[in-house]
Protein backbone atom coordinates (compact mmCIF):
# COMPACT_ATOMS: atom_id res chain seq x y z
CA UNK A 1 0.00 0.00 0.00
CA UNK A 2 1.18 3.54 -0.82
CA UNK A 3 0.26 6.40 1.47
CA UNK A 4 -1.67 9.37 0.03
CA UNK A 5 -0.67 12.95 0.95
CA UNK A 6 -3.00 14.37 3.59
CA UNK A 7 -3.85 10.84 4.76
CA UNK A 8 -6.87 10.90 2.45
CA UNK A 9 -8.41 7.48 1.96
CA UNK A 10 -11.60 5.64 1.06
CA UNK A 11 -13.75 3.82 3.62
CA UNK A 12 -12.61 0.37 4.75
CA UNK A 13 -8.87 1.01 4.43
CA UNK A 14 -8.33 0.39 8.14
CA UNK A 15 -8.08 -3.30 7.11
CA UNK A 16 -4.45 -2.64 6.22
CA UNK A 17 -3.73 -1.74 9.84
CA UNK A 18 -3.02 -5.21 11.26
CA UNK A 19 -3.80 -4.24 14.85
CA UNK A 20 -2.97 -7.73 16.06
CA UNK A 21 0.53 -6.38 16.63
CA UNK A 22 -0.74 -4.43 19.66
CA UNK A 23 -1.53 -7.70 21.51
CA UNK A 24 0.24 -8.71 24.73
CA UNK A 25 -1.89 -11.78 25.56
CA UNK A 26 -3.51 -13.94 22.90
CA UNK A 27 -6.72 -15.94 23.36
CA UNK A 28 -6.51 -19.72 22.78
CA UNK A 29 -9.50 -22.10 22.58
CA UNK A 30 -9.86 -25.41 24.43
CA UNK A 31 -12.34 -27.01 22.00
CA UNK A 32 -13.02 -29.85 24.49
CA UNK A 33 -14.71 -27.34 26.79
CA UNK A 34 -16.42 -25.19 24.12
CA UNK A 35 -20.23 -25.55 23.87
CA UNK A 36 -20.59 -23.34 20.73
CA UNK A 37 -22.65 -20.72 22.63
CA UNK A 38 -21.30 -17.90 20.37
CA UNK A 39 -20.86 -15.45 23.26
CA UNK A 40 -17.23 -14.88 22.23
CA UNK A 41 -18.26 -14.05 18.67
CA UNK A 42 -21.03 -11.75 19.89
CA UNK A 43 -18.88 -9.83 22.39
CA UNK A 44 -15.65 -9.45 20.42
CA UNK A 45 -15.26 -5.66 19.84
CA UNK A 46 -12.99 -6.19 16.83
CA UNK A 47 -14.92 -8.90 14.91
CA UNK A 48 -11.91 -11.13 15.37
CA UNK A 49 -13.86 -14.27 16.28
CA UNK A 50 -14.69 -16.16 13.08
CA UNK A 51 -17.14 -19.09 12.79
CA UNK A 52 -15.79 -22.37 11.42
CA UNK A 53 -17.77 -24.84 9.30
CA UNK A 54 -17.93 -27.35 12.18
CA UNK A 55 -19.76 -24.81 14.40
CA UNK A 56 -16.74 -23.94 16.55
CA UNK A 57 -14.88 -20.63 16.29
CA UNK A 58 -11.36 -19.42 15.61
CA UNK A 59 -9.50 -16.18 16.25
CA UNK A 60 -8.34 -13.77 13.54
CA UNK A 61 -4.96 -12.91 15.05
CA UNK A 62 -4.36 -10.19 12.41
CA UNK A 63 -6.85 -7.96 14.20
CA UNK A 64 -7.37 -9.44 17.70
CA UNK A 65 -5.88 -6.89 20.14
CA UNK A 66 -5.95 -9.37 23.02
CA UNK A 67 -8.47 -7.46 25.12
CA UNK A 68 -9.57 -10.68 26.83
CA UNK A 69 -13.32 -9.99 26.87
CA UNK A 70 -13.98 -13.40 25.25
CA UNK A 71 -11.96 -15.26 27.87
CA UNK A 72 -13.57 -13.30 30.70
CA UNK A 73 -17.13 -13.92 29.47
CA UNK A 74 -16.80 -17.57 28.34
CA UNK A 75 -19.25 -19.56 30.59
CA UNK A 76 -17.13 -22.73 30.30
CA UNK A 77 -13.66 -21.12 30.69
CA UNK A 78 -12.79 -22.56 27.30
CA UNK A 79 -10.56 -19.59 26.36
CA UNK A 80 -7.14 -19.01 27.94
CA UNK A 81 -5.13 -15.80 27.55
CA UNK A 82 -1.53 -16.81 26.79
CA UNK A 83 1.44 -14.42 26.93
CA UNK A 84 2.44 -13.41 23.39
CA UNK A 85 6.03 -14.39 22.60
CA UNK A 86 7.74 -12.18 20.01
Amino acid at each position, binding site marked *: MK*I*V*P*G*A*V*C*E*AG*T*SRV*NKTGGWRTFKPVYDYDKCIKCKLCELLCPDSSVKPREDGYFEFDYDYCKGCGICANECPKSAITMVLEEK
Partner: protein
Amino acid sequence: MTHEMKTDKKNMVVVEGSYAVAHAVKTCRPNVISAYPITPQTHIVEDLSKFMADGEIPNCEYINVESEFSALSALVGSSAVGARSYSATTSQGLELMHEVLFNVAGMRLPIIMTVANRAVSAPINIWNDHQDSISQRDTGWIQLYAENIQEISDMTAQAFKISEDRDIMMPSMTCMDGFILSHVYEPLVLLEQDITDEFLPPFRPERILDPKNPMTFGAFADPHFYTEFRYQQERAMQNSLKKIEDVANEFYDMYGRYFGGLIDEYQTEDADIIIMAMGSIIGTIKDVIDRLREKNVKIGLLKVRAFRPFPAQDIMNVIKDAKVVVVLDKNISLGMNAGALFIETKSVLYNTDIDVPVIGYMIGQGGRDIPMSTIEKIVSDAEEVMRSGIKIESQFTDLKEELI
Protein backbone atom coordinates in the same frame (compact mmCIF):
# COMPACT_ATOMS: atom_id res chain seq x y z
CA MET B 1 16.61 40.41 -10.32
CA THR B 2 15.81 42.89 -7.57
CA HIS B 3 12.70 44.86 -6.64
CA GLU B 4 11.10 46.22 -9.80
CA MET B 5 7.79 47.87 -10.65
CA LYS B 6 7.02 48.59 -14.27
CA THR B 7 3.46 49.67 -13.62
CA ASP B 8 2.11 52.93 -15.00
CA LYS B 9 1.62 55.42 -12.15
CA LYS B 10 -1.77 56.43 -13.44
CA ASN B 11 -3.07 53.00 -12.42
CA MET B 12 -2.15 53.63 -8.80
CA VAL B 13 -4.66 54.45 -6.07
CA VAL B 14 -4.17 55.38 -2.41
CA VAL B 15 -5.91 52.91 -0.08
CA GLU B 16 -5.38 51.37 3.35
CA GLY B 17 -3.23 48.24 3.48
CA SER B 18 -6.12 46.15 4.80
CA TYR B 19 -8.31 47.27 1.90
CA ALA B 20 -5.55 46.32 -0.56
CA VAL B 21 -5.46 42.80 0.92
CA ALA B 22 -9.26 42.46 0.98
CA HIS B 23 -9.40 43.60 -2.64
CA ALA B 24 -6.68 41.11 -3.58
CA VAL B 25 -8.59 38.30 -1.87
CA LYS B 26 -11.75 39.27 -3.75
CA THR B 27 -9.82 39.28 -7.00
CA CYS B 28 -8.60 35.71 -6.29
CA ARG B 29 -12.26 34.55 -6.34
CA PRO B 30 -12.50 32.81 -2.95
CA ASN B 31 -15.35 30.37 -2.24
CA VAL B 32 -15.31 30.50 1.56
CA ILE B 33 -14.12 33.25 3.90
CA SER B 34 -14.23 32.76 7.67
CA ALA B 35 -13.97 35.83 9.84
CA TYR B 36 -13.31 36.60 13.45
CA PRO B 37 -12.25 40.14 14.36
CA ILE B 38 -8.95 40.88 16.10
CA THR B 39 -6.86 44.04 15.99
CA PRO B 40 -5.02 44.88 13.75
CA GLN B 41 -6.45 42.41 11.24
CA THR B 42 -10.13 43.39 11.56
CA HIS B 43 -10.24 45.86 8.66
CA ILE B 44 -9.42 43.07 6.21
CA VAL B 45 -12.48 40.94 7.06
CA GLU B 46 -14.60 44.10 7.45
CA ASP B 47 -13.77 45.16 3.92
CA LEU B 48 -14.46 41.62 2.68
CA SER B 49 -17.86 41.63 4.40
CA LYS B 50 -18.67 44.89 2.58
CA PHE B 51 -17.71 43.29 -0.72
CA MET B 52 -19.98 40.35 0.14
CA ALA B 53 -22.88 42.62 1.11
CA ASP B 54 -22.49 44.51 -2.15
CA GLY B 55 -22.55 41.26 -4.12
CA GLU B 56 -19.01 41.77 -5.39
CA ILE B 57 -17.74 38.26 -4.54
CA PRO B 58 -19.81 35.71 -6.45
CA ASN B 59 -20.03 32.04 -5.43
CA CYS B 60 -18.66 32.69 -1.96
CA GLU B 61 -19.79 31.97 1.60
CA TYR B 62 -18.81 34.40 4.37
CA ILE B 63 -18.90 32.63 7.75
CA ASN B 64 -18.99 34.53 11.05
CA VAL B 65 -17.47 32.22 13.64
CA GLU B 66 -17.14 32.39 17.42
CA SER B 67 -13.36 32.15 17.74
CA GLU B 68 -10.16 31.90 15.73
CA PHE B 69 -10.08 28.17 16.48
CA SER B 70 -13.43 27.92 14.70
CA ALA B 71 -12.34 30.29 11.96
CA LEU B 72 -9.64 27.90 10.84
CA SER B 73 -11.60 24.72 11.65
CA ALA B 74 -14.41 25.89 9.36
CA LEU B 75 -11.89 26.28 6.56
CA VAL B 76 -10.58 22.73 7.08
CA GLY B 77 -14.00 21.51 5.97
CA SER B 78 -14.45 24.00 3.16
CA SER B 79 -10.99 23.47 1.71
CA ALA B 80 -11.47 19.67 1.83
CA VAL B 81 -14.58 19.93 -0.36
CA GLY B 82 -12.54 21.88 -2.89
CA ALA B 83 -13.46 25.46 -2.00
CA ARG B 84 -10.79 28.17 -2.22
CA SER B 85 -10.65 29.19 1.42
CA TYR B 86 -9.33 32.31 3.15
CA SER B 87 -9.11 33.85 6.60
CA ALA B 88 -7.05 36.50 8.38
CA THR B 89 -5.84 36.80 11.96
CA THR B 90 -3.05 37.94 14.24
CA SER B 91 -1.36 37.49 17.62
CA GLN B 92 -3.43 35.63 20.25
CA GLY B 93 -5.89 34.66 17.51
CA LEU B 94 -3.14 32.91 15.57
CA GLU B 95 -1.90 31.20 18.74
CA LEU B 96 -5.45 29.95 19.45
CA MET B 97 -5.34 28.34 15.98
CA HIS B 98 -2.14 26.45 16.85
CA GLU B 99 -3.67 22.95 16.92
CA VAL B 100 -5.65 23.53 13.73
CA LEU B 101 -2.59 24.88 11.91
CA PHE B 102 -0.99 21.43 12.17
CA ASN B 103 -4.19 19.76 10.95
CA VAL B 104 -4.45 22.03 7.91
CA ALA B 105 -0.86 21.31 6.91
CA GLY B 106 -1.19 17.59 7.66
CA MET B 107 -4.34 17.27 5.56
CA ARG B 108 -2.52 19.21 2.82
CA LEU B 109 -5.20 21.88 2.53
CA PRO B 110 -3.96 24.98 0.65
CA ILE B 111 -5.71 27.56 2.82
CA ILE B 112 -4.37 31.12 2.64
CA MET B 113 -4.35 33.32 5.70
CA THR B 114 -3.15 36.88 6.07
CA VAL B 115 -1.41 37.52 9.38
CA ALA B 116 -1.31 41.19 10.43
CA ASN B 117 1.73 40.60 12.62
CA ARG B 118 1.33 41.70 16.24
CA ALA B 119 3.08 41.12 19.55
CA VAL B 120 1.78 38.42 21.90
CA SER B 121 0.40 38.76 25.45
CA ALA B 122 1.24 39.17 28.30
CA PRO B 123 1.61 42.07 28.80
CA ILE B 124 -1.12 42.83 26.32
CA ASN B 125 0.11 44.83 23.37
CA ILE B 126 -1.60 45.37 20.04
CA TRP B 127 1.38 46.75 18.13
CA ASN B 128 3.63 45.10 15.60
CA ASP B 129 6.34 42.53 15.94
CA HIS B 130 6.75 39.05 14.42
CA GLN B 131 6.40 36.87 17.52
CA ASP B 132 2.96 35.54 16.57
CA SER B 133 3.79 33.99 13.20
CA ILE B 134 7.39 33.07 14.05
CA SER B 135 6.04 31.03 16.97
CA GLN B 136 4.10 28.96 14.38
CA ARG B 137 7.12 28.19 12.22
CA ASP B 138 7.02 24.40 12.73
CA THR B 139 3.34 23.92 11.89
CA GLY B 140 3.92 23.25 8.17
CA TRP B 141 2.67 26.57 6.81
CA ILE B 142 4.58 28.44 4.16
CA GLN B 143 5.39 31.89 5.59
CA LEU B 144 5.98 34.90 3.36
CA TYR B 145 6.72 38.38 4.76
CA ALA B 146 5.82 41.57 2.87
CA GLU B 147 7.65 44.87 2.79
CA ASN B 148 4.82 47.22 1.76
CA ILE B 149 1.15 47.10 0.85
CA GLN B 150 1.81 46.57 -2.85
CA GLU B 151 3.76 43.44 -1.97
CA ILE B 152 1.18 42.01 0.47
CA SER B 153 -1.54 42.58 -2.13
CA ASP B 154 0.44 40.86 -4.89
CA MET B 155 1.63 38.15 -2.49
CA THR B 156 -1.98 37.10 -1.87
CA ALA B 157 -2.42 35.89 -5.44
CA GLN B 158 1.05 34.35 -5.43
CA ALA B 159 0.30 32.43 -2.22
CA PHE B 160 -2.84 30.82 -3.66
CA LYS B 161 -0.88 29.76 -6.73
CA ILE B 162 2.02 28.36 -4.70
CA SER B 163 -0.11 26.53 -2.15
CA GLU B 164 -2.58 25.03 -4.63
CA ASP B 165 0.17 23.55 -6.81
CA ARG B 166 -0.30 19.78 -6.82
CA ASP B 167 3.35 19.15 -5.92
CA ILE B 168 2.96 21.34 -2.86
CA MET B 169 -0.57 21.46 -1.40
CA MET B 170 0.58 23.21 1.78
CA PRO B 171 -1.11 26.24 3.37
CA SER B 172 0.43 29.73 3.37
CA MET B 173 0.54 32.63 5.77
CA THR B 174 1.09 35.96 4.07
CA CYS B 175 2.49 38.20 6.77
CA MET B 176 2.15 41.98 6.91
CA ASP B 177 3.26 44.17 9.80
CA GLY B 178 0.25 45.11 11.90
CA PHE B 179 -0.63 48.84 11.77
CA ILE B 180 2.62 49.69 9.96
CA LEU B 181 1.17 48.04 6.83
CA SER B 182 -2.39 47.04 7.76
CA HIS B 183 -3.46 50.57 8.64
CA VAL B 184 -1.20 52.68 6.43
CA TYR B 185 -2.46 54.45 3.33
CA GLU B 186 -0.02 54.06 0.46
CA PRO B 187 -0.25 54.33 -3.31
CA LEU B 188 -0.42 50.97 -5.05
CA VAL B 189 -1.87 49.17 -8.03
CA LEU B 190 -4.77 47.04 -6.83
CA LEU B 191 -4.58 43.43 -8.01
CA GLU B 192 -5.91 43.41 -11.57
CA GLN B 193 -8.92 41.11 -12.12
CA ASP B 194 -8.27 40.31 -15.78
CA ILE B 195 -4.62 39.33 -15.27
CA THR B 196 -5.41 37.43 -12.06
CA ASP B 197 -8.04 35.31 -13.81
CA GLU B 198 -5.29 34.23 -16.19
CA PHE B 199 -2.57 33.95 -13.50
CA LEU B 200 -4.60 31.95 -10.97
CA PRO B 201 -6.64 29.06 -12.40
CA PRO B 202 -9.66 27.75 -10.45
CA PHE B 203 -8.85 25.50 -7.47
CA ARG B 204 -9.17 21.88 -8.60
CA PRO B 205 -7.66 19.56 -5.97
CA GLU B 206 -7.03 15.90 -6.81
CA ARG B 207 -9.05 14.61 -3.85
CA ILE B 208 -12.15 16.19 -2.34
CA LEU B 209 -14.77 15.39 0.26
CA ASP B 210 -17.90 14.34 -1.63
CA PRO B 211 -20.87 12.39 -0.19
CA LYS B 212 -21.13 10.48 -3.49
CA ASN B 213 -17.57 9.23 -3.09
CA PRO B 214 -16.86 9.15 0.67
CA MET B 215 -13.29 9.80 1.80
CA THR B 216 -11.54 10.26 5.13
CA PHE B 217 -9.16 13.24 5.45
CA GLY B 218 -6.31 13.13 7.95
CA ALA B 219 -6.96 9.47 8.72
CA PHE B 220 -5.34 7.53 11.55
CA ALA B 221 -1.71 6.67 10.94
CA ASP B 222 0.04 4.35 13.36
CA PRO B 223 3.83 4.18 13.83
CA HIS B 224 4.10 2.09 10.64
CA PHE B 225 2.98 5.05 8.49
CA TYR B 226 3.33 8.33 10.39
CA THR B 227 6.99 9.02 9.55
CA GLU B 228 6.26 8.83 5.83
CA PHE B 229 3.49 11.44 6.10
CA ARG B 230 5.90 13.82 7.84
CA TYR B 231 8.49 13.10 5.14
CA GLN B 232 5.96 13.93 2.41
CA GLN B 233 5.18 17.25 4.11
CA GLU B 234 8.86 18.16 4.31
CA ARG B 235 9.33 17.18 0.65
CA ALA B 236 6.41 19.43 -0.31
CA MET B 237 8.07 22.28 1.59
CA GLN B 238 11.31 21.66 -0.29
CA ASN B 239 9.37 21.63 -3.59
CA SER B 240 7.89 25.00 -2.67
CA LEU B 241 11.36 26.61 -2.65
CA LYS B 242 11.48 26.52 -6.43
CA LYS B 243 7.77 27.20 -6.80
CA ILE B 244 7.96 30.43 -4.79
CA GLU B 245 10.71 31.66 -7.13
CA ASP B 246 8.86 30.52 -10.26
CA VAL B 247 5.60 32.14 -9.19
CA ALA B 248 7.35 35.44 -8.39
CA ASN B 249 8.94 35.42 -11.85
CA GLU B 250 5.69 34.49 -13.56
CA PHE B 251 3.96 37.26 -11.62
CA TYR B 252 6.57 39.73 -12.87
CA ASP B 253 6.08 38.61 -16.47
CA MET B 254 2.31 39.05 -16.27
CA TYR B 255 1.88 42.02 -13.90
CA GLY B 256 5.26 43.79 -14.19
CA ARG B 257 5.91 43.81 -10.45
CA TYR B 258 8.61 41.98 -8.49
CA PHE B 259 9.50 42.20 -4.80
CA GLY B 260 11.71 39.13 -4.60
CA GLY B 261 11.08 35.39 -4.64
CA LEU B 262 12.49 33.58 -1.64
CA ILE B 263 14.71 36.57 -0.96
CA ASP B 264 15.50 39.95 -2.47
CA GLU B 265 18.74 41.89 -2.48
CA TYR B 266 19.69 45.55 -2.33
CA GLN B 267 23.27 46.76 -2.90
CA THR B 268 24.76 43.41 -1.92
CA GLU B 269 27.23 42.86 -4.81
CA ASP B 270 30.26 44.48 -3.15
CA ALA B 271 28.88 44.73 0.39
CA ASP B 272 31.13 44.09 3.40
CA ILE B 273 28.18 44.49 5.77
CA ILE B 274 24.92 42.72 4.93
CA ILE B 275 21.79 43.35 6.97
CA MET B 276 19.14 40.63 6.97
CA ALA B 277 15.54 41.36 7.93
CA MET B 278 11.89 40.70 7.11
CA GLY B 279 8.79 42.87 6.71
CA SER B 280 8.24 46.63 6.70
CA ILE B 281 11.61 47.41 8.31
CA ILE B 282 13.10 46.70 4.88
CA GLY B 283 12.11 50.20 3.68
CA THR B 284 13.87 51.90 6.60
CA ILE B 285 16.99 49.81 6.04
CA LYS B 286 17.10 50.75 2.35
CA ASP B 287 16.99 54.45 3.28
CA VAL B 288 19.84 53.92 5.74
CA ILE B 289 21.84 52.08 3.07
CA ASP B 290 21.32 54.93 0.59
CA ARG B 291 22.59 57.40 3.19
CA LEU B 292 25.62 55.28 4.13
CA ARG B 293 26.53 54.44 0.54
CA GLU B 294 26.98 58.21 -0.01
CA LYS B 295 29.63 57.99 2.71
CA ASN B 296 31.20 55.00 0.89
CA VAL B 297 30.13 52.44 3.50
CA LYS B 298 29.94 49.13 1.65
CA ILE B 299 26.62 47.95 2.96
CA GLY B 300 23.77 45.91 1.49
CA LEU B 301 20.46 44.35 2.39
CA LEU B 302 19.24 40.77 2.19
CA LYS B 303 15.49 40.78 2.46
CA VAL B 304 14.13 37.41 3.56
CA ARG B 305 10.71 37.04 1.98
CA ALA B 306 10.17 33.32 2.67
CA PHE B 307 10.90 32.25 6.26
CA ARG B 308 9.29 28.82 5.69
CA PRO B 309 10.51 27.10 3.62
CA PHE B 310 13.85 28.51 4.78
CA PRO B 311 15.90 29.60 1.75
CA ALA B 312 19.22 28.35 3.08
CA GLN B 313 21.02 28.12 -0.27
CA ASP B 314 19.92 31.56 -1.45
CA ILE B 315 20.99 33.15 1.82
CA MET B 316 24.38 31.43 1.72
CA ASN B 317 24.96 32.60 -1.86
CA VAL B 318 24.39 36.22 -0.87
CA ILE B 319 26.32 36.38 2.40
CA LYS B 320 29.26 34.10 1.60
CA ASP B 321 31.61 36.94 0.67
CA ALA B 322 30.47 39.47 3.28
CA LYS B 323 32.72 40.46 6.17
CA VAL B 324 29.90 40.64 8.69
CA VAL B 325 26.21 39.74 8.65
CA VAL B 326 23.71 41.56 10.86
CA VAL B 327 20.35 39.86 11.45
CA LEU B 328 17.39 41.88 12.74
CA ASP B 329 14.58 39.95 14.40
CA LYS B 330 11.21 41.28 15.55
CA ASN B 331 10.92 38.20 17.76
CA ILE B 332 12.83 36.33 20.43
CA SER B 333 13.17 32.68 21.32
CA LEU B 334 13.04 33.03 25.11
CA GLY B 335 15.80 31.03 26.73
CA MET B 336 17.97 31.31 23.62
CA ASN B 337 18.45 35.11 23.87
CA ALA B 338 18.17 35.35 20.09
CA GLY B 339 15.69 35.85 17.29
CA ALA B 340 14.60 33.13 14.89
CA LEU B 341 16.11 34.48 11.68
CA PHE B 342 19.46 34.86 13.45
CA ILE B 343 19.30 31.32 14.86
CA GLU B 344 18.32 29.78 11.49
CA THR B 345 20.92 31.73 9.56
CA LYS B 346 23.70 30.64 11.89
CA SER B 347 22.51 27.03 11.75
CA VAL B 348 22.64 26.79 7.95
CA LEU B 349 26.23 28.10 7.91
CA TYR B 350 27.55 25.37 10.20
CA ASN B 351 29.07 22.42 8.27
CA THR B 352 29.87 24.73 5.32
CA ASP B 353 33.04 26.49 4.20
CA ILE B 354 31.46 29.88 4.81
CA ASP B 355 33.09 31.59 7.75
CA VAL B 356 31.41 34.94 8.22
CA PRO B 357 30.64 36.48 11.60
CA VAL B 358 26.90 36.78 12.25
CA ILE B 359 25.43 39.06 14.90
CA GLY B 360 21.80 39.38 15.89
CA TYR B 361 19.58 42.17 17.20
CA MET B 362 16.12 41.69 18.66
CA ILE B 363 14.37 44.84 17.60
CA GLY B 364 11.00 46.58 17.43
CA GLN B 365 9.35 44.41 20.11
CA GLY B 366 5.72 45.31 20.74
CA GLY B 367 5.79 48.04 18.13
CA ARG B 368 8.75 50.05 19.45
CA ASP B 369 9.71 52.52 16.76
CA ILE B 370 12.82 51.73 14.70
CA PRO B 371 14.27 55.05 13.56
CA MET B 372 17.08 55.28 11.01
CA SER B 373 19.42 56.29 13.84
CA THR B 374 18.93 52.88 15.49
CA ILE B 375 19.91 51.07 12.28
CA GLU B 376 22.92 53.38 11.90
CA LYS B 377 24.03 52.55 15.43
CA ILE B 378 23.76 48.84 14.60
CA VAL B 379 25.84 49.39 11.46
CA SER B 380 28.55 51.11 13.49
CA ASP B 381 28.54 48.05 15.83
CA ALA B 382 28.98 45.87 12.72
CA GLU B 383 31.95 47.97 11.61
CA GLU B 384 33.48 47.38 15.04
CA VAL B 385 32.98 43.61 14.58
CA MET B 386 34.88 43.83 11.26
CA ARG B 387 37.77 45.51 13.06
CA SER B 388 37.95 43.51 16.27
CA GLY B 389 35.55 40.53 16.13
CA ILE B 390 32.32 39.69 17.91
CA LYS B 391 31.90 40.91 21.49
CA ILE B 392 28.14 40.46 21.86
CA GLU B 393 26.60 37.85 19.58
CA SER B 394 22.91 38.63 20.11
CA GLN B 395 21.24 41.44 22.03
CA PHE B 396 18.14 43.54 22.59
CA THR B 397 18.06 46.85 20.76
CA ASP B 398 17.34 50.23 22.39
CA LEU B 399 16.83 48.58 25.77
CA LYS B 400 15.79 51.17 28.37
CA GLU B 401 18.00 50.19 31.30
CA GLU B 402 16.37 52.88 33.46
CA LEU B 403 13.06 50.96 33.41
CA ILE B 404 14.50 47.72 34.73
